[in-house]
């Protein structure tokens, strides 16, 4: 998404005005976040990976008492 697109998105969607400098920084950061997370998800998130949550992991560990050394 370009700087112009980001500024327009925030303005029209959430009524938040950003400066050109803020839009430039956001564009750089969002491209990095988007690409990194999408690449990570591509090899981890499948239709059968849900339901999977941290809460379930935590509850399972509590159930098994794995925290004790």
């Amino acid at each position: 998404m370009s700087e112009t697109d980001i500024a327009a998105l925030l303005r029209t969607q959430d009524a938040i005005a950003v400066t050109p400098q803020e839009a430039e920084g956001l564009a750089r950061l969002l491209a990095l976040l988007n690409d990194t997370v999408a690449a990570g998800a591509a090899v981890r998130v499948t239709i059968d990976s849900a339901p999977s949550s941290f809460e379930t992991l935590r509850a399972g560990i509590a159930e098994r008492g794995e925290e004790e050394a």
Partner: protein
Amino acid sequence: MSALFDLGLVETAQAIADGAVTSEAVTAVALDRLETLGPRYNAVMALDRSGALEAARAVDRARAKGEDIGALGGVPLAHKDLLYRAGRVCTGGSLIRKDFVPDITASVLERLDGAGALDLGTLHLAEFALSPTGFNAHYGHGKSPWNPAYGSGGSSSGSGAAVAARLVSGALGSDTGGSIRHPSAMCGVTGLKPTHGLVPLYGAMPMAPSLDTIGPLTRSARDAARMLSVIAGPDVRDAITLSAPDRDYESGLTGDVRGLTIAVPQGYYRTAAESEILALMDASLDVLQEAGARIVETTVPDMMLINALMQVVMTSEAAALHRQWLSARPQDYGAQVRARILPGFAVPAIRYVEAMMMRAQMAREWLTAAMGAADLVHVPTLAVPVPSIAETTEGAPEDVAAAIARVTHCTRGISYLGLPSLSVPCGFTANGLPAAFQLVGRPYGEPVLLRAGDAYQRRTDFHTRLPPECGAL
């Protein structure tokens, strides 16, 4: 017995329970120090002197009658100003909420009340808990008791400074990306970021609820264990706690780490660490090894991915919570705070959902790589010496951003993973400021972390050191 101001939390509770001191005497000392030293470090938001002294006298009367005064009976505490107490102003460190008076009381405060602790008032924090250094455009920067030209760390800036300067022996903070661990490390105190979901968040101003945690900042691991025993456990008002254990965290502190294996991940954490930090890390590992722990080297998974996932979750949730105020009152946000929230408005929903769906898997990947078959992980809390306030507020924006990012290098990913972490002071760098390591565990692994932290502190005295101008008044 030490001077009253220099007693730790457990020592204070014991002295009051034994009748060696009165709660009123200890509380009066704490109030005097909060009023005189507190402003020097910008640690205090508001105090209730008369209410605190009256509560202290009530504890003393109860003890005199032989009543059970609780595990923290008569111990004066103060907490980060984002925990609601019905009828008391809670600013959240913000201008927008400078007059906000909640009508509910946080679960953690109710639990401390139930254990007999006194609540003397509210402590400074970064605006809306959104700065790792203690920056606050409205109430001033949190300052280190070791040197006020340096930040106290954030966002629980007042909690770290107040415990280090011996204003109180314990304080609650909150941690979303390192906000308990940064001030603990930067002020030279012990801080516990619990497993996400161990301590109820009800009545705490949220920052990013999927990551938010509440935990103690204290002088020692034993003190932290006492506070955690009181505040942790299931609460029907916060469903994420329903699988949380309800236990005594103090009973396992034997001073013995024989049989424990400590993993030291190579790569990400250590390559970013400056040489004097690495030397302090290695020295702390030597202490634990001499005490009987086994040390093994491990690796880490893709930390760039974990950090990106953390940022997606944090900024998306913070943006949702701040949307209306950021739209209507943008001038009431500090520039650093606004910059931390803004990305969340443009993160696609699918990225946020992916980040949440990947969380358990990433936690498993990190635990497999970094911990392996070990019992806990040892990494720096800060990979660099504590930065000065000028370094994180003045100069070119990219330099300031880089200085701030270095503070969170070792902490933010662990928040996304939801894991518990204990920050333990382990020495001082050339600038005279404290350094610390963090012990990271499996979900609900707090007992192991506290056991190892306590064992380390029985063999070292960094956690007992007094900042130079924080002696008797």
